[in-house]
C-alpha cells in the first residue's frame, strides 16, 4: 500500500486515525511533516497565544474517526456524571483546551502516529502515471492527502513593519493600551484577555462582527446543506464562502458582559483605524487562498488545475478531479478544501476529507 499524508498537523492526524479505522495498517501510511511529531504543536501554540480556554467546537471536535463516543462521553465517564452528555445534547458542551490536548496525546500514543511521521518537508507534488512523486521522498505514492494547514498568518500590509504589532497567534503579553485589529473569534478572545490583564482596549474593525455559534451554518456540515452547495455554480459558491469567512464569534454573556462593563468604564472602545496605541494585536487570521501556499501554488501551475477566485476547485469528496481516478487519489484537507466543504478548516471538516480519501482508497482496484 502506498499512501502518504503530507502535513502532520491535526488534519493529517485525523486522516491517519480514519485510515486506521478503515482497516489500514500503520505501516501502510507515511506522514510527512518537517516540524515534528506532535500533531497539536501548531494548534497548541496558537491556542496558548490567545489564552484560549475552551474549544469553540462542540463534542464532535475531536480526532477520533467516529463521531461517537465524543469528548462529552469521555468527560462523563471521567467525572462519573451525565452532565457533559446533557450539555452536549443541548450544544452547550465545549471541552477545555486541556481536555482536547490530553485526548490528542492519548490517540497519538494509541495509534503509533510517531512511528509513521517522517521529518521531511515536501515542497512539490508531481502527478505521474501510477501516482504522485513527492519531492523529498524516495517513493511514488498512489494515494496522497495534502493536509497543509493554513499558509501563514495574515498581517495587514500597513502593520507589517510596525514595531508595535504582533499577531494574535504569536506569543505576547499585553501593554497598558492595546489596539486589537479584527473582529472574529480570536479578536473577541483578545479583547477579553487584554481587559483581564488590565489594559485599555480599542477594537479596530471595518465592520461589525457577526454573532453565530459556529463559523458555518449547521446544515452545511451535512448533506442537507451540502447537496445544494455542491450543485451551486462557482459564483454562488464563492459568494457563500466569502460570506462565511466574515468575522464572527458566538453570542452570549460570556462575551458581552465583560465588554459592556469595560465600555461603561471607558476601557473598551471601537475605532476604524489604529491610532497611537502602545501595542497592536493583529487578530486578522490567516492568509487565504491556494496561491499563498507554495506547494499548492506549484501544483496548480504545473498541472493547470481548475481554480475559481482564490479557491482550488475540488470534487465533493475533497479530491482534485483532474488528478484522481480509479487508480490514484489526490485529496485536500484543511482550509484549502473549502470548495468541497465550507467548514473544511475544522476537525469535522478534516474528518470529512479523510472519509472521502478512505473511500477512494478502499474503492481503488490496485491499492
Amino acid at each position, binding site marked *: 500500500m502506498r499512501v502518504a499524508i503530507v502535513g502532520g498537523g491535526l488534519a493529517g492526524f485525523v486522516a491517519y486515525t*480514519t485510515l486506521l*479505522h*478503515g482497516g489500514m495498517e500503520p505501516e501502510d501510511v507515511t506522514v510527512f511533516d518537517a516540524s515534528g511529531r506532535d500533531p497539536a504543536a501548531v494548534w497548541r501554540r496558537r491556542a496558548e497565544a490567545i489564552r484560549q480556554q475552551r474549544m469553540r467546537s462542540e463534542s*464532535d471536535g475531536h480526532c477520533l*474517526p*467516529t*463521531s*461517537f*463516543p465524543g469528548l462529552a462521553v469521555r468527560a462523563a465517564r471521567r467525572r462519573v456524571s451525565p452532565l457533559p452528555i446533557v450539555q*452536549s*445534547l*443541548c*450544544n452547550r458542551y465545549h471541552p477545555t483546551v486541556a481536555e482536547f490536548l490530553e485526548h490528542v496525546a492519548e490517540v497519538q500514543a494509541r495509534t503509533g502516529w510517531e512511528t509513521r511521521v517522517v521529518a521531511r518537508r515536501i515542497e512539490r507534488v508531481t502527478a505521474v502515471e501510477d501516482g504522485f512523486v513527492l519531492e523529498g521522498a524516495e517513493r511514488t505514492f498512489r494515494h496522497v492527502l495534502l493536509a497543509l494547514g493554513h499558509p501563514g498568518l495574515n498581517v495587514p500590509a500597513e502593520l507589517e513593519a510596525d514595531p508595535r504589532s504582533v499577531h494574535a497567534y504569536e506569543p505576547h503579553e499585553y501593554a497598558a493600551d492595546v489596539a486589537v485589529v479584527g473582529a472574529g473569534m480570536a479578536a473577541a478572545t483578545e479583547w477579553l484577555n487584554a481587559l483581564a490583564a488590565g489594559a485599555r482596549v480599542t477594537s479596530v474593525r471595518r465592520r461589525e462582527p457577526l454573532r453565530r455559534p459556529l463559523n458555518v*451554518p*449547521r*446544515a452545511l*456540515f*451535512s*448533506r*442537507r*446543506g*451540502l*447537496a445544494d452547495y455542491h450543485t451551486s455554480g462557482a459564483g454562488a459558491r464563492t459568494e457563500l464562502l466569502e460570506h462565511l469567512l466574515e468575522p464572527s464569534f458566538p453570542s452570549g454573556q460570556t462575551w458581552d458582559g465583560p465588554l459592556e462593563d469595560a465600555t461603561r468604564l471607558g476601557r473598551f472602545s471601537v475605532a476604524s483605524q489604529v491610532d497611537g496605541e502602545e501595542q497592536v494585536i493583529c487578530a486578522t487570521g490567516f492568509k487565504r487562498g491556494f496561491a499563498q501556499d507554495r506547494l499548492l501554488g506549484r501544483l496548480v501551475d504545473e498541472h493547470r488545475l481548475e481554480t475559481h477566485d482564490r479557491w482550488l476547485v475540488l470534487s465533493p469528496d475533497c479530491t482534485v478531479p483532474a488528478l484522481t481516478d480509479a487508480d490514484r487519489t489526490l485529496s485536500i484537507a484543511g482550509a484549502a478544501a473549502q470548495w468541497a466543504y465550507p467548514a473544511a478548516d475544522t476537525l*469535522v471538516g478534516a474528518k*470529512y476529507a479523510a*472519509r472521502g480519501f*478512505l473511500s477512494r482508497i478502499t474503492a481503488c482496484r490496485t491499492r
Partner: protein
Amino acid sequence: MSYTLRGRIDSRLAAALGPAAVAAVLALALHRWWPVEVAALMVGVGVALDLLLYDRLLDYQPGWVALPLGAFELGLVTTLAIALDVRAPLAAAIVFFVASWLLAQLLGHAAYPLLRLSYADEGGELGRPGATAAATLAALCLLAAGVAWVTRPPTITLATGVHRGPIVIDREETLVGEPGAVVRGGIVIRADGVTVRNLTIVGGEDGIVVYNARRVRLEHVRVLGATMDGIHVRFSQVAIRDCDVVVEGSYAQGIDVSYSAYRGMSSIEGCDVSGGSEGIALHSSMVMVSDNRVHGTTLRGIAMTEMSMGEVSRNSVSNALGVGILCNDHSECEIDRNVVADTRADRSVGDRARAGVGIEAQFHALAELEGNVLVGNPVPTAAFSSARIEHRAE
C-alpha cells in the same frame, strides 16, 4: 444533526426494525394484535411527521429536541390509537413506545455513527443498509397484514327476518345482522373476542348472555321483552355501545354486569335503557358507564354495588322510582355530569332511602360527585349506613 429527508426516514425505519420484531413476538405470545398495531402507528406517525413537518421545519435538530418531538409523537399515537379503536392496554403501550424511542436515540447518537463513519455527514442516511431496513420493515408489515387477514375471526351475517334462538357462540367470531334481522329467544356468548352488531333480540329469559368471556363487543343491538335481564354479563369483560334495551316486569333488569372486576374494565356507553327494576346494575365489577339514557325503572336507575369501581358520567336518568343513581356496599363511584330528573318517592315502603333520591350512597360506599344536574328529585342526594358523598370542586 442536520438530517436530510431520506436520512430521517432511513434512521427511523432502521430503528423501528427491532420494535417491530418485538411487537410481532409479543403478538404471537399474547395472541393479540395491539403490539403490531401500536408499532405500525408509531412508524406511520413518525414517517408522516418526517415528510410533512420535521423536514420542513428543522434545518438542524439539536439532540434535546428529540424529547419534545417524542412526547408529541406519543400524544399523536395515543390519540390515533383511541380513534382507531386499537385495543391496547395504555400502560403497556406507553412502555412499548418509550422503549422504542430510547432505542432509536441510542442508535441515532451512538450505534449508527459507530457503524457508519459518514452517518452525520450524510444527514442520517444509511445507504444500502437503510434501504434494506425499509424493505424488511415493509415485508414485516405485509406479513403481519397477511397473517391478520388469514386468521381474522369469521363474520356471520344473519339475513333480514326472524331467526330462532337461542344462538350459542362458542368461538371468536363477528355476528352481524342485516337490516331487520331478529333473533327470537336470545344469544349466549361463551368465547373471547366475539362481536355482535346490528341485531334485534326479542324475548327469552335473558336477551344476551355473556359468560366467562373477554373482549366481547355488543354494538347497535336492540333487546326487547326479556323477562329477566336484557343483557346479562357474568365473569366477563364487555364493551356495550349504542344499544336499546326495553324490559318489563318487577324482576327484569336492563343491563347487569356482575362478578367481572377481575376481568378488567368494561364499558357501557350510548345505550337507551327503559323499564324494569334496575336499568343498569353493576355488582363486583369495574365499569365505565357513560352517555346512556335510563328511564322508567322501578327500583333504581343505575346501581353500582358490591365493591364495584367505576365512573358514571354524562348519563341521563329520569323518572326512576325510589333512587336515580346508587353507589352501594363498599363501592367507589365517580359520578359526574349526569342529569337525574323526576325521581319518584317509593311510597310503598316507609324507607328514607327510597324517598325519591337523585344520587344516593349506601353502606360504606364512597361517591364522588361533580357537575351533576339534579332536577325534580324530592331528595337531591343522600348517604346512609356509613357511606360518604364527596363533592369535588367544579
